């Protein structure tokens, strides 16, 4: 399946786009998404385990990804 991964702030700058498409096996987890993204040129020395949200909730590396899920990489937050 193909999943769109949302990128924000410094991560969007690093990969030069507000989102990227990732090809995943049917039983994929957050860890598979991270393995793909953090190997891309431009990711550089950014963390290999950034925070991830699935359907607008913080997820763990073992969270399953299903077709149509909204997946987002969350850079270090700096609100306030």
């Amino acid at each position, binding site marked *: 399946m193909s999943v769109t991964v*949302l990128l924000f*702030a410094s991560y969007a700058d690093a990969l030069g786009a507000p989102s990227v498409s990732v090809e995943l096996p049917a039983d994929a987890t957050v860890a598979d998404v991270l393995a793909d993204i953090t190997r891309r040129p431009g990711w550089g020395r950014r963390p290999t385990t950034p925070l991830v949200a699935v359907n607008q909730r913080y997820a763990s590396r073992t969270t399953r990804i299903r077709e149509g899920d909204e997946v987002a990489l969350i850079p270090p937050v700096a609100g306030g």
Partner: protein
Amino acid sequence: MTATGVLTRDAVDPSALVRQVSAPMHGAVLLFLGVVRDVNDGRGVTGIEYSAYEAMAAAELQAIAEEAAALVDDVDVAIVHRLGALAQEEASVGIAVAHAHRDEAYRVSRFVIEELKRRVPIWKREHYVDGTRDWVDPSGRPVAEVSP
């Protein structure tokens, strides 16, 4: 009781926040404003650009308001976080808390700002007096540099 957390692109209105939480039962009304200051980490700051994962940030702000309201009985909580380009001395966040007594109001207000900084997906890019700009991480350390 009120428990609201929202994003806005307009200026934070302190009086409106206070009105949202005020009630005859409340003897303590506490207003916290987070404001753009002129220096961060030794660098002169001219302004800050705030952006967010808007749908999730709005949901987290609302969740924090509701968790805060559950900390003590009979408390009103209103949170607003601004997005967009802010100049020095403009408020990026406003938190109003009202309770019968001050101890509870201070406790709830502190909970809200600490949770907001810990988990709401909002980012800021500081603009410096030398024309450069940087994304800021929670410790205040720049994470990426972009030429003007």
